């Protein structure tokens, strides 16, 4: 009785569950203040700049719900974008580039998933290793390729300037109904995955695995394949992110594109109220988590501090946000107790 009474909480509405909206609004207001004359494009730009990391964050969110972690998403993004750029320069086809990005991302994610799900290796170690592998391979290949295929001299890739490239660039930087296209794509993915996580049997299985893997197994869930699937799905999302990156930027640096993005994704997930221990939290928070992170970038740019201090500020804000989420309920409880 003592355990059950202490955990007699309800899976229903409470303010604490939605603190991510509050955090986002506070950050947005700060941005609004410091930017002086914020215009509509400034607001929509937040969405645009959140697109790539946001897409990665949704994969990360699903993985964290199952109680695992993926440290390789940033490397997958860099690797897929590098080879995607190469494919574009070889074929001059947007469609082939898109298909390649999706397929290659899926493959890299599947490799992670097979190691973790099928061979039961720890996710932290496997994705730490593949992070090194994926990034190193793309850097190496970039280094040995001739300049005319890379599209530029030096250790980066650049899409060759053709009609297709211009079309893709126009797509990546265009707008739909006044909103940036890439941001809209991110939102569509977000809505789709939120639906999957809340209203499909697959989504519930992921929560079940994160909540109690033994019980999930005994209830008939194929834990192995669901793990493989969630890492594969995350690879696919990183592939989409890579294509969006190419369309928006037109060039890739295998050494820096996507670097630290796994950390930003984890931060966005945690800011969004998903528990690192798995089984708890909702993907809808990840949208706000990802947007919050972009706003922090914008604030730093607006106040014109040295961009090198950027990550320190992000780290500090993450600590503050998590403190609010973790300590807030405790304060509430002790206040209640004193009454």
């Amino acid at each position, binding site marked *: 009785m003592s355990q059950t009474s202490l*955990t007699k909480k*309800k*899976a229903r509405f409470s303010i604490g569950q939605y603190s991510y909206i509050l955090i986002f609004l506070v950050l947005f207001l700060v941005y609004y203040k410091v930017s002086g004359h914020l215009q509509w494009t400034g607001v929509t730009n937040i969405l645009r700049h959140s697109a790539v990391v946001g897409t990665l964050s949704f994969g990360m969110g699903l993985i964290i719900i199952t109680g695992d972690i993926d440290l390789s998403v940033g490397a997958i993004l860099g690797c897929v974008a590098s080879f995607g750029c190469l494919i574009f320069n070889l074929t001059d086809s947007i469609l082939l580039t898109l298909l390649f990005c999706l397929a290659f991302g899926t493959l890299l994610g599947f490799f992670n998933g097979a190691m973790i799900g099928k061979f039961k290796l720890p996710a932290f170690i496997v994705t730490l290793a593949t992070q090194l592998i994926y990034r190193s391979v793309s850097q190496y290949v970039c280094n040995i390729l001739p300049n005319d295929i890379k599209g530029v001299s030096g250790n980066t890739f650049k899409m060759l300037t053709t009609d297709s490239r211009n079309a893709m660039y126009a797509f990546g930087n265009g707008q739909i109904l006044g909103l940036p296209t890439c941001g809209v794509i991110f939102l569509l993915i977000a809505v789709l995955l939120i639906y999957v996580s809340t209203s499909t049997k697959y989504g519930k299985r992921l929560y079940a695995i994160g909540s109690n893997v033994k019980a999930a197994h*005994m209830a008939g869930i194929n834990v192995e394949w669901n793990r493989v699937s969630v890492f594969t799905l995350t690879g696919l999302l990183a592939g989409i992110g890579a294509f969006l990156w190419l369309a928006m930027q037109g060039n890739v640096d295998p050494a820096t594109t996507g670097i630290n993005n796994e950390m930003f994704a984890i931060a966005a997930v945690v800011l969004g109220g998903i528990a690192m221990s798995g089984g708890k939290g909702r993907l809808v928070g990840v949208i706000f988590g990802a947007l919050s992170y972009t706003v922090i970038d914008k604030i730093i740019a607006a106040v014109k501090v040295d961009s090198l201090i950027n990550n320190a500020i992000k780290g500090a804000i993450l600590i503050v946000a998590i403190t609010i989420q973790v300590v807030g309920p405790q304060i509430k409880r002790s206040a209640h107790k004193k009454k």
Partner: protein
Amino acid sequence: MDILEMRNIHKSFVGVPVLKGVELTIRQGEVHALLGENGAGKSTLMNILTGLLPLDDGQVIFDGRDVTGCSIRESEEMGIAFVHQELSLFNDLQAYENIFFNKELKTKTGTLKKREMIQKCREVFQKLGVDIDPTALVQTLSASEKQTLEIAKAIFFEAKLLILDEPTTALSNAEIDHLFKIMENLKEEGKSFIFISHKMPEIFRIADRYTVLRNGEFIQSGNIKDVTAQEVTSVMVGSSFSNAETYQPRKLGENVLELSDLSGDAFDDVTLNVRKGEIIGLTGLQGAGTSELLQCVFGELPLRGGAIRVFGKPLEKNSIHRAMKKKVAFLPSNRKENSVLPDMSILENIDVSEHTLSASHPIIRKRREIAKYETLKSQLGIKANNPGDLVMSLSGGNQQKVFFSRWLNTNAEILLLDNPTQGIDVGAKAEIYKLILMLAEGGKTILINTQEIPEIQRVADRCVIFYSGKIVKILQHDEITEHTVMLYATNAIEVGEGTQS
């Protein structure tokens, strides 16, 4: 003189009342049994007393002072000590270090007065008649020694009221005698005890008075010598305890589960045919292989030899999913570890298995699920407010009903139940038996693994007794007695015959 008076205590958790005007009066120098089923509110009441939980309404008077809403520390200092069900000792520290933990005797420079502490510790142990070396590592102590160590700790800091929460669960009979002797001695000195237990013989041995709670309400209190165990039990469980013997012979169908020469990790050459609608009780000593047999049929443990046929068709390649498709279900033992999805709602906990079978329709149709839930809820009598509540908000018995529902929801026909009444109180147990009989009546085939023979007596058509991985005897319903089953389970019969010949 009353040492403690709790008056009209009210407490709710997120709007759900768990204590509704509870009264508890403890006299100085008595052992007071606090009785009630799991979920009756005993632990909540004790947590309020020790300051772990705030109360919503009511008054607490301890030792003549109003101490309503005191903190954990204040209650400790006043002399209320909680000896927990799960002991709260540090295994890697020595006995005396545990006693003095956080209250160490120090010199002026802050170093520890070890010798003095060990000496004082020894004195208390002697006084209590405990034979523990104060410098022994706690992990080397037995369960009963740990228990007495906790009591010694409370006595050392002059506790006036000790709360013992199911103190005898891990103890042997001799150790229980010893514990009771210690309690008697302390009682002479004027210490008072609140004794929480489900075991009637112990309560009638040690307790002076009792208080019964049911569903968060005060039911009655009085002198133990004025009542009988039967009376107390019926007061505890209320109306639900009327079905004494509900077993009735049923008409059985054709063979639905055939095990032939089945061998696995902990059992060998098991041949057993089970008919539709039959209830089989599997029993044996710890490690006799009965639980492993059920797990193997469900595909959780590997099959080493032999064959399983379900509804006349072989169950090739054992895997959980294949077994489920053949309408086999398994309710594992150790609910918390193997069944509960703690972060998920009641509804989600029920639906999870059916969803793996119906995965080709990936989208959840919430309204239909809730309709199915309502049917199961009324069929099984699950006491829950809202299907969206966390499954952890339910009591043990209701949680177990949720997991029954999980499998009934898959339309399973063969239910393998591994120790289904583990950690469930008397009243809920009776309901589970009733449920098992009702399911068999409806044509479900049920195999129960348990070491509680009265349980088998109440429900089983046949009792299959294992010894060391092999079937030694199959008893018909009328032949099942505790005595016979134990004879075969301990293999006493074979030994007896062997010495005769």
